[in-house]
């Protein structure tokens, strides 16, 4: 890319989970994600973003990162990265995350504080609000083509929760979730949600910030 770039995190993310683990579906999801009209790429190295034509996203042994650019508003594009993680336990699961580093958002005028106790709040920062809306559009198109089991948005969303562990109480406390009809029915929560074109329901952030309470590691 011709502009000076800062790829450093933390990251604002769209994290999508597919259950069970399925090579063909994950490959299809990668293809759909990277052919989204708001995305350009991918390239396998972040230093090569924009140099030469992008390569089709090929499923490799995770973890692997693919880099590209996301159009946030009509006038602004930022570097982004997709990550894949896979769970071999039980029925297994695949997780596909699209992340934008905070360093990319600063030149757009990100005003969100970077303090440790201050979660990124799309309700208080226009740049994060625009990015959040863009992620919703991308997720809506992805779900229409490759239905997923859960999507979480926000700061470090990829490590926050999973469809198996999600509860109605968690959704009501945190929000920031895109719920497919089946999961919404199982949770039977009463939080207002916005319906998207694909049938997904967006539950907005509940606590003034996008950083939720991740599962804590053991001792």
């Amino acid at each position, binding site marked *: 890319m*011709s*502009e*000076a770039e*800062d*790829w*450093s*995190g*933390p*990251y604002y993310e769209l994290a999508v989970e597919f259950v069970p683990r399925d090579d063909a579906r994950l490959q299809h999801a990668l293809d759909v994600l990277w052919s989204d009209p708001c995305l350009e790429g991918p390239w396998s190295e972040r230093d090569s973003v924009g140099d030469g034509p992008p390569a089709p996203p090929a499923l490799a*042994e*995770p*973890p692997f*990162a693919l880099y590209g650019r996301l159009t*946030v*508003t*009509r*006038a*602004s594009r930022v570097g982004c*990265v997709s*990550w894949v*993680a*896979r*769970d*071999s*336990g039980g029925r297994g*699961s695949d*997780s596909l*995350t699209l992340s934008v580093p*905070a*360093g990319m958002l*600063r*030149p*757009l*005028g990100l*005003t969100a504080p*970077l*303090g*440790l106790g201050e979660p990124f709040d799309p309700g208080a920062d*226009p*740049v994060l609000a*625009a990015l959040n809306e863009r992620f919703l559009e991308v997720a809506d198109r992805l779900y229409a083509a490759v239905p997923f089991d859960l999507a979480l948005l926000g700061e*470090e969303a*990829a*490590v926050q929760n*999973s469809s198996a562990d999600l509860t109605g109480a968690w959704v009501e406390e945190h929000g920031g979730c895109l719920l497919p009809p089946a999961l919404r029915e199982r949770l039977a929560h009463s939080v207002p949600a916005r319906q998207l074109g694909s049938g997904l329901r967006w539950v907005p952030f509940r606590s003034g910030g996008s950083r939720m309470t*991740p*599962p*804590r*590691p*053991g001792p």
Partner: protein
Amino acid sequence: MDIESALQHLKLLANEARLKLVGLLAQRERSVGELAEILGLKEPTISHHLAKLSEVGLVRMRPEGTVHFYRLDRSALQRLSRELFTPERVVSFAGRQDADTWERKVLGTYLEGGRLSKIPETRKKRDVILRWLVTRFEEGRRYPEREVNEIIQRHHPDFATLRRELIGAKLMQRESGVYWRLPPAAEAT
């Protein structure tokens, strides 16, 4: 590394699971499965944490068949520590505290999704915008005027004024139609 970069790095590391991973990998090389078992987290969660640590170069991965082993890159840890915690660096964090807050406010007022709503009339605010604008150019790289115009135009249509202002503020230098960003020490404050 400016204070915002330092905060970004610290915020990235300020996670219980991530710090425990760093500690475990400092002991010895381990697989994702082993780390997941020790920390009681799912493998994808561990993989995401490792991916973020890998992005800042703190961990390295070695594949062995289908299993991936991770280790801590001690030299990267030492480098990060030097960048964050030299006495000079720590002193610099306090130096522009008020200015940083005010500058963020100015940027928030004049920038909308990376586009400048207008060029500020007051010199002080314009300088803030110019210091932001110059970060769109890589240090050490030479740009033909056409490319300079192109980059500025992504943020405001009046590229000629802003290009002149960047030179006037001693944030960029020009010679024979070629432009380059001046190193921070030479930038106007």
